[in-house]
């Protein structure tokens, strides 16, 4: 029985990881483009940037809603503890999402677009910051007694979570820039290439700093990283991440259009894998392991047959939507 629960919990850990990875890549570039609109000199250029998101931004954000629901179902105790502990970053992220959705819709209708343009870009920045802060706060540890949070609502306001937030902002910006290289041409593409190079170096610098700092903040990680066989299990991930970083720089220098996006996604997946391997078997360090937080086996199986089976279907129709709207965006507006 213990083994069954452990296996089911691991399966759901992987599935949640897949959903989170999809969210981070897809909404990551959406948020990145949102932040980059801050630097659009004209309404026409901003319109083209927004046009690359028009048909897909809602679906991209929806992966987070799915993540919330699946986490709630598969690991109710983790859902409860995390959201309670991260109250302020989560609420700020939600405020950002409310404003972003409204701004995206209303700027099309508004005659005076300045307010909504600014709201869209700032909301994107705020969401990215809040998500980064939340990740950093989880890594520095969520204290609890009997499953209830016992820390302060301001535990996130420390240097480590803020550094992680900076990294997430740079990373999302990078995703946005490489997405724009793929979907635009001309001056916008040239500027996106410049932004991508800058943000790649910034992301790399912050990622190194976070990686060096993490073992000091989170001792369990240190034992895992610097012991056998953990060391060799984890080693391929930073190596792959670093290789992808070099390939990204090369692809940018050579003017490739699709390769930068691919290598950036590889960097994200490698960091992601590193995070997942470091966390396991914890879902909320140091309070809850996967099995402690897991729902009953009946529920995990029920969800697996429903949501688990639907996951590939969701990917297919989301992919179809991307296919329908693929190609370069050359004029402003959402009809692309």
């Amino acid at each position, binding site marked *: 029985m213990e083994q069954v629960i452990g296996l089911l919990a691991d399966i759901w850990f992987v599935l949640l990881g897949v959903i989170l990875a999809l969210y981070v890549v897809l909404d990551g570039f959406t948020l990145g483009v949102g932040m980059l609109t801050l630097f659009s000199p004209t309404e026409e250029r901003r319109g083209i940037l927004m046009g690359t998101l*028009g*048909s*897909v931004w*809602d*679906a991209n*954000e*929806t992966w*987070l*809603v*799915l*993540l*919330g*629901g*699946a986490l*709630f*179902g598969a690991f*109710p*105790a983790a*859902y*409860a*503890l995390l959201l*309670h502990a991260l*109250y*302020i970053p*989560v*609420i700020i992220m*939600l*405020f950002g999402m*409310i*404003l972003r*959705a409204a701004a*995206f*819709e*209303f700027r099309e*209708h508004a005659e005076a677009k300045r307010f909504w343009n600014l709201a869209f870009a700032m909301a994107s920045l705020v969401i990215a910051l809040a998500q980064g802060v939340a990740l950093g706060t989880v890594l520095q540890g969520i204290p609890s007694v009997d499953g*209830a*949070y016992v820390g302060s*609502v301001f535990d996130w306001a420390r240097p480590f979570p803020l550094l992680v937030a900076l990294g997430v902002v740079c990373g999302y910006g990078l995703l946005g820039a490489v997405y724009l290289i793929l979907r635009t041409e001309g001056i916008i593409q040239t500027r996106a290439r410049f932004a991508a190079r800058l943000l790649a170096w910034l992301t790399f610098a912050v990622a190194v700093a976070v990686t060096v700092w993490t073992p000091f903040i989170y001792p369990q990680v240190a034992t895992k990283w610097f012991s056998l066989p953990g060391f060799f299990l984890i080693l391929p991930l930073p190596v792959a991440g670093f290789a992808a970083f070099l390939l990204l720089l090369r692809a940018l220098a050579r003017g490739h259009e699709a390769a930068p996006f691919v290598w950036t996604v590889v960097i994200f997946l490698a960091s992601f894998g590193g995070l997942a391997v470091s966390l396991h078997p914890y879902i909320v360090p140091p309070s809850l392991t996967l099995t402690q937080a897991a*729902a*009953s086996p*009946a*529920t995990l199986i*029920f*969800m697996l047959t*429903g*949501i688990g089976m639907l996951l590939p279907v*969701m990917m297919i*129709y989301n992919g179809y*939507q991307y296919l*329908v*709207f*693929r*190609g*370069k965006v*050359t*004029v402003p*507006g*959402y*009809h*692309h």
Partner: protein
Amino acid sequence: MADTLLLARSQFALTALFHILWPVLTIGLSLFLVVNETLWIRSRDPDYYRHARFWSKLFILNFGVGVASGVPLEFEFGTNWAPFSAAMGDFFGNILGFEGAMAFMLEAGFLGIMLFGWRRVAPKIHLFATCMVALGASLSAFWIMVANSWMQTPAGGVMQHGRFVVTSYTQAMFNPAALWGVGHMWFACLETSLLVIGALSAWYIHKNRHPEFFLKSLKIAIAAAVLVAPLQIFLGDGSGRVVFEQQPAKGAAVEGHWRTNPPGTGAPWAVVAWPDKARQRNDWAITIPGVLSLLATHRLTGQVTGLKAFPPADQPPALPLLFYAFRLMVAIGFYVLALMLWSVWLWYRGELTAERVGRHRRWLLAWIGALPLGYLAVESGWIVREVGRQPWIVNGLMRTAAGVSALPPGTVLASLIGYALLYTLLLTAFLVFARRTLRKGPDVTAEPPPLKPAAPLQVNAPVPHALEDD
């Protein structure tokens, strides 16, 4: 803790009451778009295509606010109701997960094609995308009502170490309140949307703007609502009987019914009253003998438990609010039924033609005035359902006070104020832009895409802007 509880409840009330305004229209309007697109493809009458294009402008504005206000709810259970989430997540969280996977994702995955794909995919594929958006919207109502009904009449599991563990998914999902609840809410969405579609069409006709065009949508609204309105009354009655059976304290509170009727007699029904919890009686009331038994049990002398059978700590709060919210909802239900009978009669008499409809000013005004009624009824209904469930968060299993996250009151107050400000902005902007869209009116000369595309679809080619009709 008492402050935090009150603030968390206020925040949930605000976010839920605000959010529900939007999906009700999304659900009904997406089905209306399916109807129009189907009619267009079958009859080749371009007016139905133009209707689809016109109403989808309102749809997208409404959908945007719905998404904006819906995402917070997915997380609010954890942020503000952590003990509830940890204890009840085995069923409740799982159902929210299903909602995300089956409903929201389906909606979002086809929304882009539905809104912007008119020239990129063939009409039948477009219709399929619209169908998927409509299906996703309706499925979200299904799952959320299953989850909510389970909080009203929990079933299908046992409490173990303070945690609800599911033993039967069939029983938990199809708990006593579920099917009535799903039906009642889904019909509320249809009815509200039909009132909005009909009222706006009537407004254009009243202004003599494209009367012939808008008679088409008004007639669709009437044809559907004449079935929906009586069925909704039936479903409401069914939901009500489940309440008296399963949640007698809520039923008694809604009706201001204090004393259980002795065997062999019928319980009196208070038409109007002022229930007073402190004094455990109605301050005043106008009652009709025997009628409550009939309403609640469909039997002349059926027993209806009175509120006094429960200790005050187990009685719902805010009795006058429950009493009058319920009556408002019922009154609206019957008003709509009467309006539909009037409409059908005019239609039958041949009055619903472009030449003659303008003469029925009062009827058009009755329609226009009905625009907000569906929303009012939905809000009242949710107040009855949720305030009436108190003091329980999961009826009989967990008290609301035990389910709230231990947060500093100031933090919750700050987030509550933030929500209030943001939602004021959203509502104001929506009204401004919706008004602008409606004043601009439909494009009654828009040329639909060819129904039988001869050339193969070229998704790769950039679409010239002139082809894109905004």
